[in-house]
């Protein structure tokens, strides 16, 4: 089974990376970019055969390690 976990910054938390990229895109002349926020994705291979089990394991992975829940949200999707 495969899954994708997407971790993004909570609203309101400063994103210096996004800010820098926004500035750079503007100076490179890419038109129409009004805001950028950067996050992470994790593509995960799982040995689970049951979706429920896989989701439980992923949730644990997010809470314990993948996301910094102080400032980040996460989303889990099973992809195959």
């Amino acid at each position: 089974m495969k899954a994708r976990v997407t971790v993004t910054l909570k609203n309101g938390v400063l994103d210096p990376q996004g800010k820098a990229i926004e500035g750079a895109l503007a100076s490179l002349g890419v038109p129409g970019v009004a805001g950028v926020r950067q996050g992470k994705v994790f593509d995960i291979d799982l040995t689970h055969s049951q979706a429920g089990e896989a989701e439980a394991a992923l949730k644990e992975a997010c809470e314990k390690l993948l996301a910094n829940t102080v400032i980040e949200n996460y989303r889990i999707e099973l992809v195959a």
Partner: protein
Amino acid sequence: MIANAPKITPELVAEHGLKPDEYERFLALIGREPTITELGIVSAMWNEHCSYKSSRLHLRNLPTKAPWVIQGPGENAGIIDIGDGDAIAFKMESHNHPSFIEPYQGATTGVGGILRDVFTMGARPIAALNALRFGSPDHPRTRHLVSGVVAGIGGYGNSFGVPTVGGAVGFHTRYDGNILVNAMAVGLVRSDRIFYATATGVGNPIVYLGSKTGRDGIHGATMASAEFDQNSEEKRPTVQVGDPFAEKLLLEACLELMDSGAVIAIQDMGAAGLTCSAVEMGAKGDLGVELDLDAVPCREEGMSAYEMMLSESQERMLMVLKPEKRDEAEAIFRKWGLDFAVVGRTTDTLRFVVKHGGEVVADLPIKELGDEAPLYDRPYISNTFEPVLTAAEVAAPMSNGAALLELIGSPDLGSKRWVWEQYDHLILGNTVQTPGGDAAIVRIEDGPKGITLTTDVTPRYCEADPVEGGRQAVAEAWRNITAVGGRPLAITDNLNFGNPEKPEIMGQFVGCLRGIGEACRALDFPVVSGNVSLYNETQGRSILPTPTIGGVGVLDDVAVHATVGFRRSGDVIALVGDTAGWLGQSCYLRDVCGREAGAPPPVDLAVERRNGDFVRGLIQAGRLATVHDCSDGGLAVALAEMALAGAVGATLDPLPEGLAAHAFLFGEDQARYVIAAAPETMEAIMAEAAHAQVPVRRLGVTGGDVLALPGEAPLALAELRERHESWLPTYMAGQGHLTAA
């Protein structure tokens, strides 16, 4: 008149951390019910962090003056004169609570804040240090906290471009729920180019500079002063995120702006952001301030006046500018890609007026916000002292060598290389003494002058006897500077304690402060800046009293200094200072015997000075180049560190009679230095010492690749090194750990 919604209820007042009598005091001051924005403002101004209401009374007793002190406490940083028109600005500050909640960002913003304090005064940062205290290594959060804090300190300092040249790391279960992150910054400024926070002139523009304002850290300052409880992990969204790149731009832009002659006054936005900075600038200059929040650059939409006044978004500054230089100033900030906005002006009303959306949302007497802040003479009780432990009451180890191996590989005494290798300690190309020595040495520009820096405190001594512990912290900082050959000039302090409303905690505070004051006076080592962090308690359990001392000294010729490592075979090793074999509160007692007991070693300040002056004189005369002070772990640990640093072993003479071997080797008597020099030089030194009535005792000779204690199997340096270097990396590689991204 001021619109008043919502209604101010007692609950709301309590949520803002104001006690009922404090609120009454505020009501009396303004003569009407405050607006929510005003309540926010006063809660920020009157909390412990900004008002020093529990500590002010006692801080007044610290010596703050010396002929070389240009600026003592009260500005963003203290400043001392190091000659030739050069001055050093420095300060230390804590970011304890935020770092416990989010270690990486808590530490970054701590470093960012202290760097800003230094460059706000016109000084370019040239060095950073930090003092860290974590909980027991066995505590489930410790590894995560160490990893995040260290990565955060490095992440910010490395990117900003300041060398992190020293510090301290310790572990103790009393920090399990309240770690300490104390960061120190040191900057160089010409003594005729210093900038202050005092506004002058009526009608001058107040300018906002730097990053935009968001909802970060709202109530951060209140949080820093509130005791932790289990719910505090839910206060998470108040976490601030640091942006070292923005800070680097802010530094360059501010220094360029200062050079342009446009700046009248400057103040960084630290705790309680816009509120504290604006009030302080006005109050110091006996001026009123009017702010128009509609002009404040915001990162988020729909921010209220309350939020803007309390936001702790990082990398922001407030300045009063000469009106005629406004355009020039703006051009400089635009060049660096930073926000620049005129957000207010100085007035002659002595009122602090805040407008938002065309309405007045606050109108307060500006001086009283600071001057009339509550001041407490909190009751305190002196601690019951631990009895003096004699060596006979402390078990000797099976083997002194085995005990030494255990100590040198313990969490507190093991090498901190894993930590400081994550800090760029070499950038700027002036780090003459890197981490690993007694004090860091940083060359000033192209020399020949240099400064020497250290942070010190021994919390277990402070706990056992606050006065003695306070003295010892200052004495150790003085000694570390002396040990490299520096002339100690001044200190900054970071006073970390528990809840001051408890008389025994207040007793620790008062006691430590008395000890610090005595030592500073006796050693001509005044306090020029500092920071107080109280309420470091979780569920009623307080941290060990931890008054961290950051010391600064000067070297007239940076090439003439001493280092820790043995240099060659055949040198004679000697000990300066008397050894009674003091084992109370020693690392030996704690880490080998498993007891934390007894009175800490007494500090005789006159002896401290005499021994130190003697050692420094020899270094400065170019006659002594191998020196290490004796501190945690005593003589044996000092000798092992010298052997490891120089990769040259040593063989000790028979130990003195009449003193138990373990007391001689592991006792933590103060005012001692281990020195090494060629035999003929040492002979002359010992003769002079006898003449000057400084006790010096021959210990042995250097050479070989073992450390040979008398009557024991020699310890291979390789084994000592393996023990010394392995604890922290092994610990950090432990279960489930991942370095903070």
